[in-house]
């Protein structure tokens, strides 16, 4: 538990309204969007929640956590899928909602952002300046940039523009041992020393905290155009995706949806009529107007050649927005099919996508579970969802997930394309990294966070836990 002395000091650092200690407030910081973890989904309450207003307060808190040895659980908007923002043993949830200032530096084509800024706001403010912040996680309307950096979030435009890491130029950060560092630079390129930005991006709050970030922006593309292509079978759609890539048509987004996932959001897709297709692709292109139009027609003929029975091109802002809104709603909307899902985000080399779709389906069949697949076909990153029917216990979930991860790795892929490891996948991390990989990560953690206070119980497997003796006060 956090000692009363430490709590008192926290209150002094944060000022009135900055520290939450009542049961109602704590309950609201006990969850994120993680659908399932083999370690259990039960609510673990934090001891307290801090709502810092500036970087100095954050640094003081990290010092205090070292002095009194309590866990810090960083939290952006709590939209993560692997439990990164959930307390596992109590401690202090450090929520960045009040650190939400940003400015667009249009002469530098960069943005300076605090960690609590909501991602869609960065996109909108950039657009207002004729600029473009490409990373677009499906939760962009709710998630924050701090969480995006900590998880190295991917999203819908990764096939052309890459992931969050690719847009972080520099960071102001505080490490687990309370050292404040500047990582990277405000410039488009910098090779001054080790790439600390890459180390921190995707570290899931286990090494340090982002206090401020400089993001790279691009000029806003002149036009965008979206194609919806409907197929009879998932196989057809999954083979059309790599064909579009190899034809060098440079899609901004190339999304795959199978029958179950389409069903979940069908009410938002007027184009479908009453027939639910076996699968569909959503393809977006951007660029100069004439060029976009030409390429989208090429994409359409590839889809038609490979079995699409219906296609539609949308270039109006409104129609496109509706399509992408439906696409972004899939993950939560799958709850309509089953109250419980094993939701994994494996990725494979893009040419192997169809094999992954087939294999994932077979694993479901073998284990008696419906398998709903959708995702970033252009990245080879598939969201595989095994649906556990209402009333049934998710027995064997751990085995099903393991089989899927083994399949992904056998195809040359990874166990997580973009959700991260958190608590949900840490028992599987070794499958991909091997023991040596885990050991080196633990050494890095030891160097930057010697007391192990930063987001304990996440990323590295249980035998690497740093605060095994810590117990929350009410459960003593």
């Amino acid at each position, binding site marked *: 538990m956090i000692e009363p002395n430490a709590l008192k000091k926290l209150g002094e650092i944060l000022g009135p309204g900055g520290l939450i200690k*009542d*049961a*109602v*407030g704590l*309950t*609201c*910081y*006990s*969850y*994120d*969007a993680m*659908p399932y973890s083999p370690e259990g989904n039960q*609510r673990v309450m934090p001891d307290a929640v801090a*709502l810092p207003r500036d970087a100095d307060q954050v640094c003081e808190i990290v010092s205090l956590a070292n002095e009194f040895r309590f866990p810090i659980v960083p939290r952006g*908007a*709590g*939209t993560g899928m692997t439990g990164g923002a959930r307390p596992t043993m109590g401690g202090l949830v450090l*929520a960045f*909602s*009040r650190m*939400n200032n940003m400015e667009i530096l249009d002469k530098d084509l960069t943005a300076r952002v605090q960690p609590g800024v*909501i991602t*869609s706001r960065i996109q909108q403010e950039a657009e207002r300046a004729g600029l473009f912040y490409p990373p677009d996680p499906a*939760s962009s*309307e*709710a*998630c924050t940039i701090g969480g995006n950096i900590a998880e190295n979030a991917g999203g819908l435009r990764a096939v052309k523009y890459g992931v969050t890491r690719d847009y972080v130029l520099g960071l102001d950060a505080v490490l687990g041992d309370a050292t404040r560092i500047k990582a990277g630079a405000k410039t488009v390129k910098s090779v001054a020393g080790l790439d600390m930005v890459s180390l921190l991006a995707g570290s899931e709050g286990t090494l340090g905290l982002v206090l401020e970030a400089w993001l790279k922006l691009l000029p806003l593309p002149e036009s965008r155009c979206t194609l919806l292509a409907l197929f009879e079978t998932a196989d057809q759609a999954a083979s059309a995706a790599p064909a579009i890539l190899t034809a060098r048509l440079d899609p901004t987004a190339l999304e795959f949806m199978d029958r179950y996932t389409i*069903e*979940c*959001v*069908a*009410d*938002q897709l007027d184009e479908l009529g*009453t027939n639910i297709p076996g699968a569909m692709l959503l393809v977006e292109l951007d660029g100069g107007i004439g060029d976009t139009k030409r390429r989208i027609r090429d994409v359409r003929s590839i889809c038609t050649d490979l079995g699409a029975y219906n296609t539609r091109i949308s270039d109006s802002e409104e129609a496109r927005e509706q399509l992408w809104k439906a696409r972004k*709603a*899939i*993950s*939560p*909307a*799958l*709850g*309509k099919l089953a*109250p419980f899902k094993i939701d994994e985000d494996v990725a494979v080399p893009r040419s192997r996508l169809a094999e992954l779709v087939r294999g994932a389906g077979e694993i479901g069949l073998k284990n008696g579970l419906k398998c709903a697949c959708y995702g970033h076909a252009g990245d080879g990153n598939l969201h595989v969802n095994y649906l556990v029917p209402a009333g049934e216990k998710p027995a064997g979930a751990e085995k099903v997930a393991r089989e899927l991860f083994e399949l992904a790795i056998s195809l040359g892929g990874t166990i997580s394309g973009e959700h991260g490891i958190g608590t949900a996948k840490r028992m599987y991390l070794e499958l991909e990294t091997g023991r040596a990989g885990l050991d080196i990560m633990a050494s890095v953690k030891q160097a930057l966070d010697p007391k192990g206070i930063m987001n304990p119980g996440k990323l590295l497997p249980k035998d690497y836990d740093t605060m095994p003796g810590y117990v929350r006060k009410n459960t003593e």
Partner: protein
Amino acid sequence: MTTKRDKSASPVGLTSISRIAESTDACRRCGLCSSVCPVFDVLGLECASPRGKLQLVAAAGQGDLSCTKELEKALCLCVGCGACSERCPNLVMAKETLLAAKQVLPGKRPGRVFRIAAGLMSREKTISHAAGIAKSLRPLWASSLPDDQGLVMRLAKPGARFPKLAETNLKKIWPRNEKNGKPVSLMPRDGSPNAIAGIFPGCIHTYLTPKAGISLARVLAAAGFRVDLLENTGCCGLPALSAGNTKQAQKAMAHNLDVIDIEKYSVIVTPCASCAAMLKVHYPALASKTGYNQAGIAERLAAKVQVLSQVLAKHTGKIAQREKVTKEGTETIAYHTPCHLAKALGDSTSGPKVMQRIENAGYRQTKPACCGQGGLFGVENPEISGKIGSKAAKILLGTGASTVATECSGCYLQLYDLLWRENRKAEVIWLAEAIERFGLAGT
């Protein structure tokens, strides 16, 4: 399609917290509701977000959280706009779940807000800092305004600019038969109505803006209706429901279902979108779950309820302006879409569609934004409400419009105050008044 929202799934009217908490089962905690919540936008606290509040209901339902003041306070941090329910990709009825939870959670608290409001109004000291309000309230309090009317509570918002109270009420100024004193119907000019419309006036048109009630009747008559005043109807009951007082809400519902001759009317028009939401959405849910024996009636009434813009969106005839405005064509007008219309009734198009036909003023279309009033929310949380509302006011007036039309009592009262704070020349009027002032083109 398989996934249209089903109103019968509304937990409103359920009496056990564990049953109500079941409607949170489908919540995947994705946070999309938070991104559209006006209260979360202002406060930034997770316990103010719909997702947070749903998780609180879930925890209470599982017995992990006891019914404390803090819990009650958190659950009441809801303006009731319904943006959360509309946005939820998983069809969780967030707003309705909170509304239902309020009825049962904090133990028995019959009419807590009623008591606060009544207490405020009777305790001069408490509101003496809001001079003028107390003065204007007292005669009203003492006068003909029944104390179960939702309006009473809205009046208790301290410090807000408030419309001058009418000397009369709608029942008094509605034309009557000289012999028997019964209210007469307003008829279209050609004398042959194509349908009968009943006006459910609600508190606001009855007591506060009765002249606008007559405007509403004239506009409906001009659209070809024979228009009756449903003069024996009372408060719709929504304020009581929002205050967590199911019993009072049911009482209001039972009374209204009793006095309205539903079969006689082809449409029942409320000037207020919140009344419409209560009649159309909450009555059937309340009636079906509380064993109210006239559930069928609630459904039949619900099917006929509309607000003015919905009626006019389908009636395409021209409606002439009543008197020429000065400097024709120089006025600009915006339309404030009530959340209860856009979200609860799911209609965000009728209002703008009708406004596009406004003849002698330039219509400035805006994106809908919550005004922050939310019935009693503004009374309980004036500061948060004001912050939400001033954003909406800035959007509306940012178009250059000096007049804003709306059709909801809460929005009307809130904008009456907030538009004036932004711009001393700006004013809010009822949609019917806007049509009489500027005229409506036919299509």
